[in-house]
């Protein structure tokens, strides 16, 4: 069984296979309590995934809604060959991809990155940050997301999943509904373009 999501973010509870199967069955039976439970368990994970992929919280609530609507409608077709969290992650990736495409067609005046608005995992910062360090961190993130904006949507997703999320080709292939060879090719070109921008060269 493919399991991509390695972290537990927010209140996402880890479900055992039996619990998960039961929850899915109850959701399929249109049981509201089960749908609420699924939403409650995975809402932070879904929001976190979308937030990190996109780099800002513009329309985040709408996107979270879209992910869960797709999930509830598509549960009938969920075969269980991946964990539920992985399947939801896959939906997140597709929704984010759609959003990135829309943004490229209709660029907005809203800044790309506002990741400073949310707290960083405390385990990663062993001491309080100085204002200078915080500013530096923020600028670095903005630079990364600006560089990501330069890439074509498919390349961007693949690069994000590999470089930032640290997923391997097989996992990425499942998430983007492609095959590992295609992913590897996309990643090859995406990395070149991305690091060129990061290094200060034009892609």
């Amino acid at each position, binding site marked *: 069984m493919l399991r991509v999501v390695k*972290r537990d*973010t*927010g209140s996402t509870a880890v479900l055992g296979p039996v619990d998960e199967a039961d929850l899915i069955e*109850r959701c399929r*039976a*249109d*049981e*509201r*309590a*089960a*749908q*609420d439970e699924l*939403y409650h368990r995975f*809402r*932070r*994970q*879904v*929001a*976190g995934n979308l*937030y*990190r992929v996109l780099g800002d*919280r513009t329309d*985040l*609530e709408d996107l*979270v*809604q879209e992910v*869960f*609507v797709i999930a*509830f*409608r598509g549960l009938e077709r969920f075969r269980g060959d991946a964990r539920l969290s992985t399947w939801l992650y896959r939906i997140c990736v597709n929704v984010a991809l759609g959003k990135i495409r829309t943004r490229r067609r209709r660029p907005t005046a809203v800044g790309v990155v506002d*990741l400073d*608005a*949310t*707290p*960083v*995992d405390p*385990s*990663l910062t062993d001491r309080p940050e100085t204002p200078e360090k915080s500013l530096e*961190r923020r600028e*670095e*993130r903005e*630079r*990364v997301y600006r*560089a990501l904006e330069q890439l074509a949507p498919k390349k961007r997703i693949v690069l994000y999943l590999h*470089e*930032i*999320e*640290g997923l391997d080709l097989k996992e990425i292939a499942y998430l983007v509904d492609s095959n590992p060879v295609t992913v590897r090719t996309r990643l090859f070109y995406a*990395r*070149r373009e*991305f*690091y*060129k921008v*990061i*290094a*200060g*060269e034009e892609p």
Partner: protein
Amino acid sequence: MRHVPPHRWADAFAGKLSEAEVAELDAHAESCASCAKRRDRVQRASSSFPVLRAQSAPELAWDGVRARVHWSVSSARRARTRSTGRGLVAVGTLAACGAAVALALATGSAPRPSVATPAVTAPRRAVTPPPAALAGLVSRQSGQVMIDGMQRDDAFERTLGAGTVLATAEGRIDVQFGDHSALSLAPGSTLELRRFDAEQIALAVQGTIDIEVAPRAAGQRFLVIAGDRTIEVRGTQFRVSHDGKHTRVACHHGLVVVRDARAEVAVAAARKLDVDAAVEGSHVVPLSVSELDQLAGATPAMLPLWSDAKALVHSSAALEVATVGKRAVRVDGVEVGEGPLRVRVMPGRHTVETADPAGRFRRAGWVDVTADHTARLAVHAEAPPTGGAAERRRQLHAGIDRARLSRCTRAFAKQGFTDTYVRIEISIDDTGAVGFLNVIDSDLPSTTQACVREVLADVRFHAGAAATFRDKIDL
């Protein structure tokens, strides 16, 4: 050596290169300022990846998102149901046309196709206006209740329409949606008003719901959807409990039809049906006396007169009875449930009684209610009764105006009825004030009982021990 491409630096920081390769790149960077600059930039970006990966989700309006998700999912379900229905109609129409043509050909009466045949124009689709939307009003609420995913303080100031989702924790909510038509959602239940218009009311329930519905007009349907089972009624009072697999339908009066994809069963008054797997094969059995009593006690709260919900929401008001702990509450002599609660009443003066720990109702006070303003009555915990009953009983008997009492029973006595009695229950507080006085039993007619009660109520008590007791007064 040529300049180092930036992604090679990324490979180096990700540990994908051997030590020798890294050393070679570093050596080049020592002598090449532009490569050293690129290296630093890529390094800074690479070092920010773990921080980006650790970003947690921002706080969102989770309940609002949940409500919208549910709305979207249920809307899609409704649309699917409608389109399926239309599809069936279309298939039926085609089949009918086909059959007509086949019949005509078989009888030889089919008209020969002619070049001059005028083009058949499609009949214009009759535009039928959508049925008028219904609106419901919260008529009673106690405990934790969510409307569309939120606990709302203004539940009594809003009307509820199609798409509304009600959910109860340990609370209960009653909604009136017509004259003598209301529902009561029991604790731990969820209800969605899937369709709520003059043509059809369809309620999807998870948990337990008690419904009283006035007889529906021709063409009006009332459905309760419990999983893949449907409960349809005309006019009745009934209860549906559904927990995902098991469905129980209990009918207080009227007739209820329970159906699934394969069969349907009618449940008559004072009967119940338990469905575990399929309706087919499930048996209707009589309700026990206690079940019937329970069903009767769960009648939803209703306003006595119903006109238009949108007008009533402003012409009525919520009366909040704040009790200490859970205790039964009566408003104007009608038991409305366990307080603390809010109940919808019409403007005017309302008397509130609450039950003491022994279950005896005593007057908590009265409250003036004005339209569109929530009125509140706080009921304080009373002091525990003390043992002064004997003294108070003696005072009662000594204080009764026997002459007035005999006037009450004179007409009755003239007819030869003597040795009559009233059995009373009375509560007297430490100041000598009468808390309540109830006639609990008598062999007198009610008018005479009332006269006797007035005489007893005029007995004056001194300050002393508080007491609540029952006594028999022989007349």
